[in-house]
């Protein structure tokens, strides 16, 4: 396996007094696409918030290219080349489509992604660039959210539930676009409830259950039975 770009060691995360993650051990290889699945409340989004620095963690629990990032603020983590497409898209309502994309470039990292590259990927966004981001359809908003993350030219990109609340046809479009996005040497973590979709684009899969890793496997060899067991915790 290639050197890990991201590793977690005994990651414990808390929401106030409530512990949401227990001793999570996880690694993402350079250029690898990792899928994380799990039921609602299993801790997937908490894991994303911990990695991106929106939740603070204990020291040395998260390493990015060997550097301890567990205590960094989210903007400092972003500058290192880690971007997220957040759950529920979370565009900035008072910014236009174009401004939303430009905010993504705020970290100032160089790379192949700029406004033109994003418009080439999602031509509809160029037509709608001056509209309020809230006036777009759900699928188009998801394109803005993905474009916004790409504008940071990240080395590791996190997709949190990109298919949530979208029509199946749109989900299909987005997943067809994903290999082209990730193909450029980027690593990715894809958090997904749609297990088939998650397995189809990833090389390895982790399953979370009640805050613990219940399964780690190669995506192409994992069996449905293993997933059911890891997902629901039943024999």
């Amino acid at each position: 396996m290639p050197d890990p770009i991201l590793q977690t060691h005994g990651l414990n995360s808390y929401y106030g007094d409530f512990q949401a993650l227990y001793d999570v051990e996880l690694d993402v290889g350079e250029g690898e696409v990792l899928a994380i699945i799990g039921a609602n409340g299993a801790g997937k989004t908490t894991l994303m918030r911990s990695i991106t620095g929106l939740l603070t963690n204990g020291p040395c629990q998260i390493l990015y290219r060997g550097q301890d990032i567990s205590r960094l603020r989210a903007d400092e983590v972003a500058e290192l080349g880690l971007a997220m497409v957040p759950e529920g898209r979370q565009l900035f309502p008072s910014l236009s489509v174009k401004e939303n994309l430009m905010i993504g470039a705020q970290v100032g990292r160089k790379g192949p992604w700029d406004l033109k590259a994003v418009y080439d990927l999602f031509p509809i966004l160029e037509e709608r660039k001056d509209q309020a981001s809230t006036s777009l359809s759900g699928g188009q908003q998801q394109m803005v959210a993905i474009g916004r993350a790409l504008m940071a030219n990240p080395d590791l990109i996190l997709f949190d539930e990109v298919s949530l609340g979208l029509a199946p046809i749109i989900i299909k479009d987005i997943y067809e676009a994903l290999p082209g996005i990730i193909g450029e040497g980027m690593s990715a973590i894809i958090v997904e409830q749609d297990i088939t979709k998650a397995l189809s684009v990833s090389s390895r899969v982790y399953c979370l259950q009640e805050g613990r890793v219940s399964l780690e496997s190669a995506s192409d060899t994992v069996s449905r039975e293993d997933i059911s067991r890891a997902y629901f915790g039943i024999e």
Partner: protein
Amino acid sequence: MEWLNAIVQGTLLGGLYALFAAGLSLIFGVMRLVNIAHGDLIVLAAYLGLTVTTATGMHPMAALVIVVPAMALIGYALQRGLLNQTLGDDILPPLLVTFGLSVIIQNGLLEVYTADPQTLNAGALETASVAVGGVALGILPLLTFGIAIAVIWGLQWTFYHTALGRAFRAVSDNQDIAQLMGLNRRHIFGLAMALALGVTAIAGILLGIRTSFDPSIGGGRLIFGFEAVIIGGLGNLWGTLVGGVILGVAQTIGAKIDPGWQVLAGHIAFLVILAIRPNGLFPRISG
């Protein structure tokens, strides 16, 4: 003609109130912080102007070159060092802390400058006027109104056409996601407060040239600023100018009827508008 005069003078006075209000509006818009110490910061700026003019012999308008950056610096330090720590889901801590700050500034000013009323000496600018159609327009009020328009236009432009303005709006929309985009909200808030206090510095100097001031008058300026913001509608800077003008006109008309009614008439106009349109005339932010 006397009534026309009252309306025109009130309109120009509204420019000063809009300057009082612009900083308040900006801060509330970006970080939902209600700054109770805003009026005292205006008075602090006037006193800084006094120190600069007496120490260097500069004209008060020229002193802006020093006072505006100084207030901006104070704003950034205040935000990073104190106010950021009070921001959160609860709106009460910033209210209490800025209230405390208001008391500290007032007493600090009393200690340093005593309670004696002071003015900024602007020479001929204070009394010069031009006659337009039988109404004498003071150069200072005209200048104040012009500056108010320029400041509001400048803030508006900053908000909608610069990277800084984009960052202000993004952080105002969603702090967590803005942070994910590499925007450190603590720094952005610091810049917003610096900008707001830069505007406050202009307001303070113009106030100091127009009337005498002492350490206790901050509260009154805060109320006028609040009223202009609320009348105009939250989050709308041009609305704030309209709010300032309505307040100014109500005051001069009130004073025309009976000199004792000046301040009261402004408050009554504010209450009437609040009763008819609780969100102000041109609201942009709901809630």
